[in-house]
């Protein structure tokens, strides 16, 4: 199942111009993620993040669209993606929160 999800995500993000994601493949991905398996969610998140690092901006663009699609629909994906934001963001946030609490 995890390999299928990863493969679907790779097929959804080819290095082509355009911002349209294949609705059929999106349906397959939605069906795969619906049971809420942590393993599948992990695989999907890892695959999307891997495509976000691909050495072509067209693939990155499609991966970001897919990432947005997943982020808005899956709490599990949100929980996995937010910690991937840069460490300094968390650090800035902690500093800001610490300053607020000290005031």
């Amino acid at each position, binding site marked *: 199942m995890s390999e299928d999800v990863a493969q679907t995500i790779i097929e959804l993000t080819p290095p082509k*111009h355009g*911002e349209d994601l294949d609705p059929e493949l999106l349906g397959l991905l939605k069906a795969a993620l619906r049971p809420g398996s942590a393993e599948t969610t992990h695989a999907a998140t890892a695959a999307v*993040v891997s495509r*976000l*690092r*691909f*050495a*072509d*901006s*067209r693939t*990155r*663009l499609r991966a*970001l*669209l897919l*990432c*947005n699609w997943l*982020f*808005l629909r899956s709490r599990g994906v*949100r929980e996995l*993606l*937010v910690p*991937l*934001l*840069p460490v300094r*963001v*968390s650090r*800035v*946030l902690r500093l*800001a*929160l610490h300053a607020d609490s000290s005031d």
Partner: protein
Amino acid sequence: MLACTLGTSRPLPKPQRAAERLQELSRSTFATWASEFGAHYTQLVVAHHLAAEQPPARSVEAARADAHLQSRYESLVPQLPALFSSVRSKLAQLDATVALLCSRSPLDADADEEWVDVGRDDVDDVEPPTVPAASSAPGTDAAEKAAVRDAVQDSMAEMRRDAMLLDDAIALLTRVQSGAARGEVLRDAIGLKSAISTALKTARALLSGGDTKGDDQPQPAPAVVAPVRHAVPRVADAAHHHIAVLQTARGNGPSHATAPKARQSRGNVKRPPSVRDRIVKKLVRRMM
């Protein structure tokens, strides 16, 4: 993730258009996430602000192209003064040669007249010449003009090569973003390119006009040449000098009356030697 979609730490990959769109979409996506889920994940709000403040990123390809342009510019700049001076020198040479070709100069006419006068005074004492005077030989004048025309064509070919080099330099200078004295150099390059175009047009008009006229009759200067000659007085002096050199080369040197004029002219004008040498060489070859 910010680095992958915004290019915060390293440039985004090619193509440039997709990279720009990726950055734009990334900003709007972070804004959406911050507004929808900012209450639950405060990192999203900070990430949104960081994304909004991120300057437009350039793709790897664009950054590499900029670096390549800059290195080409830095290697070109030291060569430009030599190229400019070479072009200026060739322009002066071409002007001088064109001026020589466009008409028989008044000095040349004076020289022939005074030569006849001297000969008439001493006509009884002097042996009849075994070799006919070059000025009276019908083919000599044509040979002289053909030699000068060849020199003009050679100069034109060189000027075309220089024009191509200047085109490359101008293209590079207009594309490069920064550089010391770029504007001044660019202005010089464009001015020289324009001067080359004008000189080539003039020479071409002269060569095409000269082919239709007879060699025996004095050819009036074309209208396009006249302003050039009046604008550059040294060209006429250089032309007189060339004529004197040519007459010397064919064994029919200038008269005593005109020699001081030629010397005076030589003293005032800095003449390009290469064209003169070429003309003399070709003429001597034709005469032999």
